[in-house]
């Protein structure tokens, strides 16, 4: 028995309707991008969940390291002035 399907893994993104962005829905194995898109149609859009599909080779995705979460994402924590709620304005004004 073969130990690996030997087929590349593709991450699938589906746009649910025009005006929305593509959202990750899962992955699948396929021989090439065309088969990936066709399989994704059968697998992830059986009930009209999408109007557009992206298939991205899993090995082509470069992600941030979860261990870097602190250094990467903490700096904005002390920049509260980036939020509108930081500012005091007269309460009766619409601003």
């Amino acid at each position, binding site marked *: *028995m073969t130990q690996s*399907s030997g087929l*590349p893994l593709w991450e699938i993104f589906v746009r649910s309707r025009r005006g929305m962005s593509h959202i990750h829905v899962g992955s699948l*194995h396929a*021989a090439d991008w065309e088969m990936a898109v066709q399989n994704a149609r059968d697998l992830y859009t*059986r009930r009209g969940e999408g109007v557009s599909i992206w298939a991205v*080779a899993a090995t082509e995705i470069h992600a941030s390291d*979860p261990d870097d979460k602190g250094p990467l994402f903490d700096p904005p924590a002390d920049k509260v002035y980036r939020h509108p709620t930081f500012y005091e304005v007269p309460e009766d004004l619409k601003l």
Partner: protein
Amino acid sequence: MEQMVDDSLEDAFQHRIDAEVKIEPRDWMPERYRASLVRQIAQHAHSEIIGMQPEGNWITRAPSLRRKAILLAKVQDEAGHGLYLYSAAETLGVDREALVDMLQTGRQKYSSIFNYPTLSWADVGSIGWLVDGAAITNQLALTHTSYGPYARAMVKICREESFHQRQGFELLWHLSHGTEAQHEMAQESVNRWWWPSLMMFGPPDHSSPNSEQSMRWGIKRVSNDELRRRFVDMTVPQARALGVLLPDPELRWNESTGHHDFGPINWDEFHRVVGGDGPCNAERLTRRRRAHEEGEWVREAARSWATRHVPARIEAA
């Protein structure tokens, strides 16, 4: 030293779970958490794949085009659910083919409910109503499981399963309100599927060895007995509406607990079927293996195409 590092990592991990923060694929996790998840998700995926067989058995004999189209769509959904789950399991670093191999060599299990035969057309209804009803009860709880990809797969599956349960209920309703023979067919089928459906929630809490740790890790959110109780409470009024009897003389409403009491489950039968000695264990696995072997030329062709047409930097996985 290494042990100390692991202990503090494990403490941080447990805090995260306790705070209801989801675990995602590349996060640190205890090896036993990973192994436990792989086992559970794989078993769940295998159940969907094997689960295609009992109902697939009736596709060519569905009594109308409407029923045939519904059944085809349902069996296709089961395949889809298996694939969502394999995809979730793969995020834990296991190989798809290795999982398929574990199923086909009997080293990983699937839900023992699928080792019962579908003897009449009404069984398609009972599977939808009772078996999928039980599955939904379990899967709704799992939408809150601690591992992100598993929880997301469950949300999608639950959304689709509700069609499965309703079509089963409707099918049985038509039989139950049809001729006397049809009503009898519905009742006979419910008689056979009721007890195995209750067994789907697994052994009672006091004798379920893996449950406690699974609950601590947030993999399992609701205990076997509690899920079973929810299912019984939900199903009793549905049976009344259907006009069929549930085959348990001890089944009755208990005013003081606010739930239904029900008779003892035959756990010997459960263990026998899980252990391989059910009516269809051998048949299900043999058929799965044969389908896999007969599909080898397709996989071979796809692999050959991939080597020639996909850039080498997109590695096979």
